[in-house]
């Protein structure tokens, strides 16, 4: 297992390089002329303006030159300048990263909590009505397009019932908390602003639920399967033979063991969450990387698209690696072999 992780660690930079290369190649083979989106249709007839723009964005260099330039810049954290916002892409992304992370983490917490509860219940009451309801609920969550379910919950809970606020990361009348981490929940708490914290939390509920629902299904199916597997093990019978009650057997003995295989799919669920986040952010006008990516794709904003793709790919790779490491840390059997290997 330790050598496996070592191999994964070594492969990481290579895969990252691959990700960067693919992303870069994509911009080179762009069909549409990005110049149009830089200087606008009208200026396209003005050769002087066109030439200046080409020079400025390095669009007239050859492919290998641009690649080397791009790699060099990337190493210094420079992802180029967005055609659209006219800001450095890295800066755009840094500003928006906390918003996305806050949303994705909240969704992950909600989604896995619900998924684990549903999975445990489904396994406990196997083939009964609860199992079927959980299965149906999970399937709907995995099948519903978030860009529609998001609209629907906004309409129901915000417009019709008025229980929760409308789109946006912060109440439209409020101002953002003083910057500390960029996580509004943490920043409002740090500022001692309880009303602000509550408001920020309320804004978070709908998008995080919609996004979390997409992984609930994956998690609950996995938990159910591994719970059924674990519940058939002899140490479960042994725990009951000790006189342990049903809840203790289910949580302390079974769930603990069932969470191990579940950990491995958390990385996989993260892919779902990134996919979902892009669409959810657009619906909930959440100022994160997802809505930035959509805007960049719509505006054919090359440097921004490449930047987002690289960051997304890197995040994806890192999460999968972290999942493996977490797995190794949780399972004492793996922990031992690692100590022996060291």
């Amino acid at each position, binding site marked *: 297992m330790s050598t496996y992780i070592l191999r994964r660690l070594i492969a990481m930079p290579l895969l990252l390089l691959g990700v960067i290369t693919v992303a870069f190649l994509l911009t080179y083979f762009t069909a549409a002329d990005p110049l149009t989106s830089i200087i606008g249709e009208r200026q396209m007839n003005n050769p002087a303006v066109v030439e200046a723009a080409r020079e400025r964005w390095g669009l007239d260099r050859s492919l290998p030159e641009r690649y080397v330039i791009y790699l060099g810049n990337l190493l210094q954290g420079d992802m180029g300048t967005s055609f659209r916002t006219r800001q450095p892409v890295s800066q755009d992304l840094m500003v928006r990263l906390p918003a996305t992370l806050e949303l994705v983490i909240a969704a992950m917490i909600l989604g896995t909590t619900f998924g684990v509860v549903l999975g445990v219940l489904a396994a406990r009451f196997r083939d009964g009505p609860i199992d079927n309801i959980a299965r149906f609920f999970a399937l709907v969550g995995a099948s519903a*397009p978030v860009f529609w379910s998001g609209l629907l919950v906004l309409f129901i809970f915000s417009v019709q019932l008025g229980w929760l606020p409308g789109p946006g990361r912060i109440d439209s009348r409020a101002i953002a908390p003083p910057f500390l981490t960029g996580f509004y929940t943490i920043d409002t708490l740090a500022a001692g602003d309880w009303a602000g914290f509550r408001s920020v939390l309320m804004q978070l509920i709908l998008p995080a639920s919609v996004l979390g629902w997409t992984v609930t299904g994956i998690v609950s199916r996995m938990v159910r399967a591994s719970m059924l597997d674990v519940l058939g093990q002899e140490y479960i019978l042994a725990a009951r033979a000790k006189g342990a009650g049903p809840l203790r057997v289910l949580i302390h003995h079974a769930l603990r063991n069932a969470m191990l295989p579940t950990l491995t799919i958390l990385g996989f669920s993260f892919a779902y969450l990134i996919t979902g986040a892009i669409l959810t952010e657009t619906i909930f006008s959440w100022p994160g990387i997802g809505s930035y990516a*959509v805007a960049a794709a719509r505006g054919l904003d090359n440097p921004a698209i490449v930047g987002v793709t690289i960051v997304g790919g890197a995040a994806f790779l890192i999460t999968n690696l972290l999942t493996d490491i977490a797995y190794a840390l949780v399972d004492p059997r793996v922990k031992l072999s690692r100590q022996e290997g060291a």
Partner: protein
Amino acid sequence: MSVIAAPKARRRVFLPQWATLPVILGGAILLFWIVVGITIPLWSPYEPTMLAGMRFQPPNAEHWLGTDALGRDVLTRTLYGVRHSLPIAAMVIVCAVLIGCTLGAIAGFVGGIVDSVIMRLVDVTLSFPPILLAMAVTAALGPGLGNAAIAMVIVWWPIYARLMRAQVLSVREREHVEAAVAAGATRPRVLVKHILPLCWSPIIVNATMDFGQVVLLVASLSFIGLGAAPPTPEWGQMISDGALHFYRWWIAAGPGIAILSIVLGFNFLGDGLRDFLDPRSK
């Protein structure tokens, strides 16, 4: 020592074993959409891109799902939408399976440097969250349904390549293959005649399960504005229209339910199929 589990008494009188509730339900949903997609021009009272009445009508007897911002009939547009979603999804799956399986089979059978090159390509492609790569590729090729389809083939083929390679590697070790090699069969002949026929079943199951995901991704790209262009009655595009006026919930409801039902249908089908083919997962 194990406790003897009491199997639940279950009787099915007329139905074959694969016909579980999910499979029947999924099959019925898909059959409905296929029939609708083929026959809709014959019986639809409205045209999908023509004005059918007043703008923003809520559902009523005349327009069961209301009318949209331009006064087009939402139900008609929703039903016509399947004529875009299903064929594109089918095309994407077929192309991804063909490309992926060809490369995967070559990688698994030839091995060596060819294998390495193909599999590193697979690794890198799978390093991206699917929607991001699809977005980037579509944006590079230029928006449009055709380009979105190409992008999705690029995103999807590695999954089948990996699957096919694993299959070929395991089948290759079987005795009848070694016997064929020993008998002097040429390598391409061994691959095509003796190995490939045994590799298809997991590919087909996987493809069925991916179908729904492809439908969802097509709609997502259109929603973002990278797929179908207005006034095409494409579901993602329609929901994007509806999002502008989301207080009028019915505009997005039709296409939303359509996507949900079709993805659910494929998931039911795939789920039931997997339970049937792999009893351990139940």
